[in-house]
């Protein structure tokens, strides 16, 4: 189960989405999230679905691989759906028992919220699957570079993020190993109530933290040994410059947002 986390893992493939400038992809993700949470109405959702499906198709990444990331948020999804479904007041009540009730608004909310969360995960995983952490860093650094004028350490933040992403799979593997090692010594991660289970995680978390710190220390040393100083004067192996396809992508993204917002105004949900 623990290996199923796909967020932050690059999936190498030769596709147009992979080749897009990371700034475009970051911008697209931002617009996509805005569209997702501001859209009102079924037409907007259909447009978003179409947009997402096209992006997934173009990325050439197997759809099932992308949805692996969903497994980790199943609990969150269930909770959101149940709360929305049973606790939203509405005009027409189909069923009620104590404070629990199912209403028309509740059903719409539950469906929309679930779809939004699923789309959110798929959309953001798609971005991280098609962009290497280094590209992501470069994109962030470049997009946020105006902030460095007011002394925000943009480069350092971007570097930290990319390293965090690079180490996710390694730490996941390590968690797996420690888990097995502790289970071999009789640790129990599966049974008991939630508090007991949380307590049982301590023999997993402590060694994991210790090893993460040791790794961080070694990595910092390795970076220093390779002349990294986190200051000006670095050059780029893959400098960013916009190509024609990036400009086209910007146009598509902007028109996508306009369509979604317009659809929400023209045809809102049935009230």
């Amino acid at each position, binding site marked *: 189960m623990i290996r199923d986390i796909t967020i932050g893992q*690059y999936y*190498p493939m030769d596709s147009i989405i992979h080749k897009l400038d990371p700034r475009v992809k970051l911008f697209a993700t931002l617009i996509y999230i805005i569209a997702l949470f501001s859209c009102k109405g079924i037409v907007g959702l259909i447009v978003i679905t179409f947009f997402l499906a096209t992006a997934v198709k173009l990325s050439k990444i197997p759809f099932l691989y992308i949805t692996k990331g969903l497994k980790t948020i199943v609990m969150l999804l269930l909770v959101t759906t149940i709360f929305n479904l049973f606790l939203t007041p509405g005009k027409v009540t189909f069923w009620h028992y104590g404070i629990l009730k199912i209403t028309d608004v509740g059903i719409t909310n539950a469906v929309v919220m679930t779809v939004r969360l699923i789309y959110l995960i798929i959309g953001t995983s798609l971005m991280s699957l098609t962009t*290497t*952490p*280094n590209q992501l860093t470069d994109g962030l650094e470049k997009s946020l570079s105006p902030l460095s004028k007011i002394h925000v350490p943009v480069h350092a933040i971007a570097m930290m993020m*990319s*390293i965090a*992403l*690079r180490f996710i*799979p*390694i730490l996941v593997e390590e968690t797996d190993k420690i888990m097995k090692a502790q289970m071999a010594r009789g640790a129990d991660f599966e049974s008991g109530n939630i508090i007991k289970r949380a307590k049982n995680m301590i023999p997993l978390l402590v060694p994991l933290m210790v090893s993460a710190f040791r*790794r961080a220390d*070694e*990595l910092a*040393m*390795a*970076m*220093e*040994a*390779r*002349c*990294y*100083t986190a200051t000006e*004067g*670095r*050059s*780029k*192996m*893959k*400098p960013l410059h916009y190509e024609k396809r990036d400009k086209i992508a910007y146009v598509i993204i902007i028109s996508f947002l306009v369509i979604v917002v317009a659809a929400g105004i023209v045809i809102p949900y049935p009230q």
Partner: protein
Amino acid sequence: MNIIKAINLVHEYIKRDEDNNVSGITKALDDVSIEVKEGDFVAILGHNGSGKSTFAKHINALLSPTSGTLIVDGKDVLDPTKTLEIRKQAGMVFQNPDNQIIASVVEEDVGFGPENLGVQTEEIWKRVEKSLKTVGMTAYRHHSPNKLSGGQKQRVAIAGVVAMEPKCIILDEPTAMLDPNGRKEVIEAITELNKKKNITVILITHYMEEVINADFVYVMESGKVIMKGVPREIFSQVEELKKHRLDVPQITLLAHELKKSGLDIPDGILTREELINALLKVSQQ
């Protein structure tokens, strides 16, 4: 010309208790003097805690000596303005391949060093190409390091150092975490660098087999250099090595045992061919 010259190097780790009082001093390096000629393949042998890794980190200016001098490529490691130049000339490869690969694509990681040096983009690509070719990893350039074997990861790490075009590479137990195949791959890559590119190599290890082809060997124990010489000299002293709980290559050990039991063969046999020739000579007599 000596590229590395260490004179009476001392490094102390100071232990402090909770009130920040000194509770003990460990001498990780104790009066170490080592010289490395440019273009040589030098091996430093020793157990864990013998100070060999501490010494390696001094060459790269990651640690500074408590006393003594260390000159790397004509620059004093104690001069903070020279630190970057020293690191550029003396690249370092560490033990754990996972903890030294920064990027998530092989070629981007190899380009990390040159990027830090501010090398022009086209030149970075040329260097990445060349370095990957040197270690035989060109086919994997677009792969994610997580999907490579230990030996392959370590070769990527070596390529990352080679791309900075250093005069000297220090390898701090690069094979300790690898299986025999990975170990062989890495040692072959290092030997190739030394022979073909004429890069000075300092190999820190505790595998005796890896140092047979070295030009010079230092043996360290508890922070001191206890033996030094060409491999043949070192390995002819089997009893002395055993006293320090160090192994000798299997062939050498076999030859030594044969000699002890009365056969007339020379000391310091390192390879199979040498042993065969020696035995043939004995049988002809």
